[in-house]
């Protein structure tokens, strides 16, 4: 890597927009001159939170439009195009409508617990942003247990969803909540294992540390551990309740799942948090697997947070793509895919990561030669695993069943069909025609 530190020191002033931390540091130092310590830490905390909120708030409004428009394109229709130029003001109109709507609560609902979830769901949704690094020194809190923090905070959202579904006193809401809880508990396992490969290989649990490792070794993790990236992507889309895995609010089965009874802006809050979580998870996928704010030296010239936002946008587009293309899975299919496919595969890659890390550290292999070999090996292993999965899960051609199940005492099912077939000479169904 070329050394650009000279340039960085020249442009390290507060107006250097490549690193917004400079401005904050200036403010902190200025307060520390006259004020007490705690005031400085409170003000920096508030500034960081406001910065995060200032990014999320306007982005959400645009994202609603982007998501609807892109999905419409995938489904060969126009999408919102009536309110404002090219339908850009549609989210504003929706928000106004949601705010004006009456807030209904079921009479038999548990009042306190019913009112809390739309507010509480924001807490994990905002807290997760805290450990997302926008640049070398640009994360609100660069914890050295950042990965664990991410998992812990996203795990608490399950509880809020359960509260929403249970307190509504509606069987569909309860179904949705139970499904959401079962799904997120299951998909947390491949998610943790996929992150464990990165933690093992880079030797750090800090999110920024993982990005710095990728920068140092000049490699992005999706090349080294492609299967972990795929597993994390799918597990994240399941945790986010997005369409290939949105069984907890499957509108064709259980009305709207856990937020069936929430009307007006209360529903709007759930919706907003869901979109915000999608954005931040795209950011984390970009950070963990695509190098985050780093892009082979380009981060010295382009502000690092712009690189991260572009990568986040690419991952977000991929999430919209899967949502617009794939059909919804059934509950048992979703659970089966998690426990029978994703968990063994990610577990295999944890072992692979342990072995390769040992080769690098204890055996002292040269990283410039060993890493490309490992990448090729892991990509081949991933392709093999995917082909094996495709071969195993391919629907077997249905021949004569080995034994008839649940046929019962009386005639029915397959036996009845055979009976009918034996009585009539002509085939029942003709394919095609003349």
């Amino acid at each position, binding site marked *: 890597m070329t050394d650009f530190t000279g340039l960085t020191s020249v442009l390290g002033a507060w107006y250097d927009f490549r690193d917004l931390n400079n401005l904050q540091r200036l403010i902190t130092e200025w307060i520390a001159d006259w004020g007490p310590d705690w005031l400085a830490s409170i003000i920096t905390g508030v500034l960081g939170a406001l910065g995060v909120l200032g990014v999320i708030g306007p982005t959400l409004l645009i994202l609603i439009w982007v998501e609807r428009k892109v999905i419409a394109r995938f489904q060969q229709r126009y999408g919102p195009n009536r309110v404002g130029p090219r339908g850009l003001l549609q989210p504003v109109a929706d928000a106004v409508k949601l705010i004006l709507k009456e807030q209904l609560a079921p009479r038999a609902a548990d009042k306190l617990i019913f009112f809390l979830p739309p507010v509480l769901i924001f807490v994990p949704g905002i807290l997760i942003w805290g450990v997302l690094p926008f640049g070398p020194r640009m994360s609100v809190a660069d914890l050295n247990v950042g990965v664990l923090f991410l998992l812990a905070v996203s795990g608490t959202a399950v509880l809020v969803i359960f509260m929403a579904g249970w307190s509504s006193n509606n069987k569909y809401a309860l179904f949705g909540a139970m499904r959401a809880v079962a799904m997120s508990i299951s998909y947390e396992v491949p998610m943790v294992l996929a992150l464990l490969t990165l933690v093992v290989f880079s030797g750090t649990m800090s999110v920024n540390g993982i990005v710095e490792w990728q920068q140092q070794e000049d490699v992005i993790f999706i090349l080294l551990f492609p299967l972990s990236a795929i597993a994390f992507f799918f597990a994240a889309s399941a945790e986010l309740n997005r369409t290939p895995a949105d069984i907890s609010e499957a509108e064709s089965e259980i009305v709207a799942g856990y937020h069936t009874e929430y009307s007006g802006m209360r529903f709007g809050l759930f919706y907003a948090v869901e979109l915000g979580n999608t954005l931040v998870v795209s950011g984390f996928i970009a950070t963990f697997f695509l190098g985050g704010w780093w892009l082979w030296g380009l981060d010295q010239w382009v502000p690092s947070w712009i690189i991260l936002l572009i990568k986040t946008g690419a991952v977000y587009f991929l999430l919209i793509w899967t949502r617009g293309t794939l059909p919804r899975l059934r509950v048992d299919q979703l659970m089966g895919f998690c426990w029978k496919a994703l968990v063994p595969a990610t577990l295999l890659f944890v072992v692979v990561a342990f072995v390769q890390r040992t080769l690098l550290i204890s055996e002292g292999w040269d990283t410039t030669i060993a890493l490309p070999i490992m990448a090729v090996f892991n990509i081949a292993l991933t392709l093999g695993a995917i082909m094996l999965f495709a071969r195993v899960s391919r629907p077997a051609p249905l021949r004569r069943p080995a*034994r008839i199940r*649940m046929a*019962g005492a009386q005639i029915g099912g397959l036996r009845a069909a055979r009976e009918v077939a034996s009585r009539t000479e002509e085939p029942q169904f003709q394919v095609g025609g003349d």
Partner: protein
Amino acid sequence: MSDFGFHLAFWSLAAMTLGGASMIMISRNLIHAVIWLVMSMLGIAGLYLTLSADFIAVVQVLIYVGAISVLMLFAIMLTPRAERDNSQTKASAPAALVVILVMISTLWVAVDTDWGAVREAALTEQARLIGESLIKHYILPFEIGAVLLTAALVGAIALARQDDEDAAVHAASLQAELEGEESIDPVDVVDPPIVSDTEATS
């Protein structure tokens, strides 16, 4: 962190923990009690943070708030509705006595012990240190825990698993019940006479 910020954090977190804990006692509804318990757990996690134990705090949230409380909620949902009420407790007087005794003895120990204050800065690489000591010094307890958890996992699967034959018998008996039949021979269900292809097409 100066003293003021630390004291503010400590006292508000302590109030949150104790308030949540006392609300568990007061609330009649068990689901409410679990949610108050979660609040109490979060307070404890915050107290760990004031002690600079980042790793323990995050793990507290991950395990107690994210997993154990959900497990409790499931357990409550699976019990009959009549037994969910907290009001029928007849053993409240002896329970209160036991709780008071435990509290007094804990407080006694806490006040009586000469707690050594640590003046050094907090450790930064806690997770690494914990991991190293787990696989170096405490490898045997670690392995025993792993084996125990695996055994629990296998046991849970064995309990929850329903064999194909069991399922067939169950379905058949359900159907027989619906049709008003007295009983059904399980052997007949498990191995039903299959109509052979030649028979069916002839």
